């Protein structure tokens, strides 16, 4: 491909309308259904959520408390041992404002999505690794994300009422700012 520009490359572009009017177009919807085993660590974690608790699991070697918990420490390759209940508080590591849904449809009301760095023992302050969750924020305005005020903000979980909890990560409705 010397020169690059002069050579015409293979392939034929189709406009959307052209593609949908192609003869022999086959529509197929994959039937892919699964029943995932959450396993030892995640199952207990989900039970904890139902009780309004955020549970972590400690590595006996390095002392990291994992949230979400795992059955093994990925840095030491040792089975994790004791369960630790965390206060649930933490700070916003990063946050964004989403205007689109999973399937890229425009949403009426934007959502604030964040990585929450939880207060948990076993990590160096300001270190690369931390215990944390991926979740949504409420009582935080898009402007707080854009200005940067939201980052580093102290937050706590807002739990759904006990009767609505299902042992699901959505038992936490969202994280919200800790009142000062």
């Amino acid at each position, binding site marked *: 491909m010397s020169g690059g520009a002069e050579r015409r490359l293979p392939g034929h572009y189709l406009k959307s309308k052209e593609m949908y009017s192609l003869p*022999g177009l*086959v529509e*197929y919807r*994959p*039937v*892919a*259904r*699964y*029943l*995932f*085993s*959450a*396993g*030892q*660590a*995640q199952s207990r974690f989900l039970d904890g959520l139902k009780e309004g608790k955020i549970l972590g699991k400690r590595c006996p070697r390095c002392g990291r408390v994992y949230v979400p918990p*795992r*059955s*093994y420490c*990925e*840095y*030491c*390759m040792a*089975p994790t041992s004791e369960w630790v209940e965390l206060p649930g508080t933490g700070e916003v590591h990063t946050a964004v404002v989403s205007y689109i849904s999973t399937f890229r449809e425009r949403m009426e009301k934007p959502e604030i999505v964040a990585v929450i760095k939880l207060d948990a023992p076993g990590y160096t302050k300001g270190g690369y690794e931390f215990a944390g969750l991926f979740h949504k924020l409420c009582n935080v305005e898009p402007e707080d994300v854009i200005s940067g005020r939201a980052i580093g903000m102290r937050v706590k979980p807002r739990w759904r009422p006990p009767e609505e909890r299902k042992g699901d990560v959505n038992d936490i409705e969202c994280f919200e700012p800790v009142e000062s």
Partner: protein
Amino acid sequence: MSRRVAIIGVGWYGFKPSIPDLSFREMMFEASMRAAEAAGVDLRKDVDAFVSSQEDYWEGIAISDEFAPEPIGGVLRPTFTVAGDGLQGLAQAYMLIKTGYFDVVLVESHAKPSDILSLDKIYELALDPVNIRPLSPSNPLFTAGLDAVAYMSRTGLEREDLAFIAVKNRVQGLRNPRASYAAKISLEEVLEAEAYIYPMTRYEVAGFTDAAITVILASEDVARRFTDNPVWVSGVGWSTETGTGALAWHEWGRMKSMRMAADMAYRTAGVKPSQIDLAEVEDRFSFMEPLTLEEARLAPEGGAAKMAREGVFSPDGSLPVNPSGGSLAMGVALEATGLARLLEAYLQLVGAAGPHQVEATRALVASWRGPPTYTSMAVVLESEDAL
């Protein structure tokens, strides 16, 4: 091609039709810890690269290799996935060591078919979307039936010849703790059982099993530091006969990819088929065991089924074939099936097979990825006693 490659440890977990209490990741961890213990290796310090073997739709996760590193020790290490059978993963590890740059490489594969609720539809999803899927074959494994019929008509075999393989392997499996589908059955029971894919009945088609297997390989000099009982990976081979979109090109009733994979494994090992004294080979459909043996030149064309009935391939015969019970007794562990065969051959060569131990020093391990694909893998393993 100077450095030899050894297996220094193998670990496994599962081999049950369903393991609801552990996630696939926890199964991977259990297998990897056992392999590390067997090899005397610290997974976080001694391993140069990690290979996982899996496929997205078996896992139910797009980009499933995201989940590979944590349970096998591969976090922040050279870790990658082969979208293929564990033996293809093993071949990559073999090559990595042969470059001279890597000394210890871990290979992992796992399967949790019990998590999949629509397994037949997942198989259907592997068929060509334009040419074959619109035909909505009621059983997406139908290509195996076509191959079985073509094989029978080429060799003059009868249904009894194929059914006998199911009897042999399911009964042999009774001595193997990993063989969840072992059964004391008779030829009549196999022949009279419910038809599954003509010409095969339910007993002639392997079930599915949840399993995780981890194998640790090392270069020769490093292997000696860890073990005094290495098993040598003397040769590897793998081949694809045709893409799944081109079934029309497939040579029905043959396994051309198996022939090519086995020939490559013998060539890289520098051994002749006649030197093989143990075979752990593909048998997820009854006809595949004799066909594989023929394609791998361990039996003459059309002669394997007869040799099986004469006892040549029995545990006390001159060439034991699938003394583990094979996939017919152990179940198909999706992409971990090749490593299941390798695990069994390895245990035989180090004398740790337990109740189903046979005498052997040089094994052919062979697996196949279908249906509906036509990729085969073969490995020649040798114990320290193989001369």
